[in-house]
């Protein structure tokens, strides 16, 4: 019982530390700027910061762009990684290990190193300044392939064989046997992928030029007005607005996410 109590207290402490930046952002966002660093209970409330932030950039459009971007990336990653993972997990072909090692190599390369090379490819394809252009370098994911392969390998071979005896084709086996069993992995990987692309900044900034393609993060950078210092209140309001959809989604599906992470073994 005693250790339990200690554990609970420690969890609360860690939880508090984690949520503190968020609480601060909330505090700064709903009070005037002069209270940003004065924690006074008597500070007046205001919606002014949200109004200023909202007016500073076309956020509805940016939100739509971000939404299209993360959906596009996620769907493409699932569609591309699943067959690849199945091939690496269950099919026998010469050079399988070598090819898999090459795929894993991609994990070692920082995406920032490839900025110029990726940009050049996109320029050749005529995809600069398009949402597809932002997404393209990320559609094939080594991490996704690796993760799904590990999960698929744990699927009992008997299920595969049984489906085959019933007359299922290759795609039907993947769709009916492997994908349902790997659902926690898909959810967990989806969360990692969505939050990464929701937050990605440098690449979208470089490859986009217009309001119709830019995601939220690039819109947010308007507030990093370095020549005059940071207005914490407005930047907090903007941050809350842009991260709210993700936070809400997480709170709503919290149970599923937590269970998925436990089962998928990503921590």
């Amino acid at each position: 019982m005693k250790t339990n109590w200690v554990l609970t207290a420690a969890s609360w402490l860690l939880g508090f530390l984690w949520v503190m930046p968020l609480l601060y952002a909330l505090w700064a966002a709903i009070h005037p700027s002069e209270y940003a660093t004065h924690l006074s209970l008597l500070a007046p409330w205001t919606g002014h910061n949200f109004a200023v932030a909202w007016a500073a950039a076309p956020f509805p459009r940016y939100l739509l762009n971000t939404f299209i971007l993360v959906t596009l990336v996620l769907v493409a990653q699932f569609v591309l990684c699943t067959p690849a993972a199945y091939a690496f997990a269950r099919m026998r072909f010469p050079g399988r290990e070598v090819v898999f090692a090459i795929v894993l190599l991609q994990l070692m390369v920082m995406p920032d190193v490839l900025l110029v090379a990726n940009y050049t490819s996109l320029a050749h394809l005529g995809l600069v300044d398009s949402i597809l252009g932002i997404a393209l370098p990320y559609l094939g994911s080594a991490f996704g392939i690796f993760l799904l392969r590990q999960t698929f390998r744990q699927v009992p071979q008997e299920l595969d064989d049984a489906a085959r005896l019933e007359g299922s084709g290759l795609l039907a086996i993947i769709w009916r046997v492997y994908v349902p069993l790997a659902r926690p992995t898909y959810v967990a990987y989806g969360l990692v992928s969505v939050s990464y692309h929701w937050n990605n900044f440098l690449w979208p900034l470089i490859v986009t030029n217009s309001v119709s393609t830019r995601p939220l993060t690039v819109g947010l950078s308007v507030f990093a007005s370095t020549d005059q210092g940071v207005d914490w209140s407005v930047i907090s309001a903007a941050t809350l607005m842009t991260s709210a959809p993700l936070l809400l989604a997480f709170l709503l599906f919290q149970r599923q996410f937590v269970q998925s992470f436990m089962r998928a073994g990503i921590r």
Partner: protein
Amino acid sequence: MLGRRALLGALPVLAAPAIVRAQTAQSLTFYYPIAVGGPLQAVMDGYCADYKKETGVTVNPVYAGNYGDALTKAQTAIKAGQGPHFAVLLAAEMHSLQDADILVSLDEIGLDADGKKWVDSFYPAFMANSHVGGKTWSVPFQRSTLIAYYNKQAFSEAGLDPEAFPKDWAGMSKAAQTLTKQDGSGRVTRWGIKIAGDLGNAQWTFGALANQVGQKLMNEAGTETYFDAPKTVEALTYWRDLAPRGTPPGISAWPVLSPDFLEGNTAIIWHTTGNLTNLRGKAKFPFGVAGVPGKDSPHTVVGGGNLYFFKHASAAERTASLRFAQWISAPERAADWSIKTGYIASSPAAYDTPALKQYVAGFPAAAVARDFLPVATGELSTFENQRIQKVLTDQIQAVLNGQKEPGPALADAQRESTRVLRQFL
């Protein structure tokens, strides 16, 4: 594409230059960063719409983040052959951009008599980071200097004359110490002064300090630095000795200077003129603007962004870019941009426009920075600019943190920068 470009390039040789001039580019793209608050993207879009109405030429302004982002974005796009025709980038990046071999000089684009007059119309201080090898590589767009903002209320409270900001180092130190206020337990509730010592800003502040003893930090060619000169050491020693009684020990960071000033945590800050409009809107106390002091008399440093033109553009596009640059830096536009941002207008003529005259009459502080331009120097600008800045800043921070003495620290900085710059000599 390649064929057409090669053909255009060959045209001047094949045909009379007048024919090339006659073909004008109808669409241009440029990148610009924003480093101050306000709906400036809309302002810039408005300028370009006006230009289209006047000339029929479409100019697409692309907001490119802060100065660092804009530089990365422009260089990446240009390497991929899809870059902008011109861009607003830090004036101090001239040598690095030249080294990347992507710039074209104004002389090469071709300046007629009017063009030469235009280049001469800017404040000379703003051209301090534009010349190398006898050519002009950029023109000022949104420029600033380091100036002092001070809390007049705090001055009165401490028994100092709020209309007489110190003009020399001795007066500055004394004022800073007088302004520092402690509560009963000895905790400081208000510092006298805060100066930025963080990466990306320390070298700028320090450029002003060096200029205040009459020392330059680099040569015009950007191939040599003078970090270990006795006067440079003197400047750093002065900065360090402001602590702990006038300024907090250690590093103060640029982005928190204005919030600290607005909250009364510090009575004086050395900051950019680009901050003026922001502070004016937010300060709850009367504040003053003054030139930063010097060892004997006020001296400062210039900063901000210039317009650069890129080599990969065709002859017609280069000419069209130059024409737009002339249009957007004309006195009326320069005055308007200055009022909306707080930057110093780039030419004296802009201060003769009715709009800016009226603005300065209602807000005299807006003209203070301009008045100190004659005593301003160019900012630290060398080849491998960002590396050299880091080398210098590391040593400045070591001194401010009390880990090193100014002399040995700056000798180390000089040794390292000499090593980095050797290949460019």
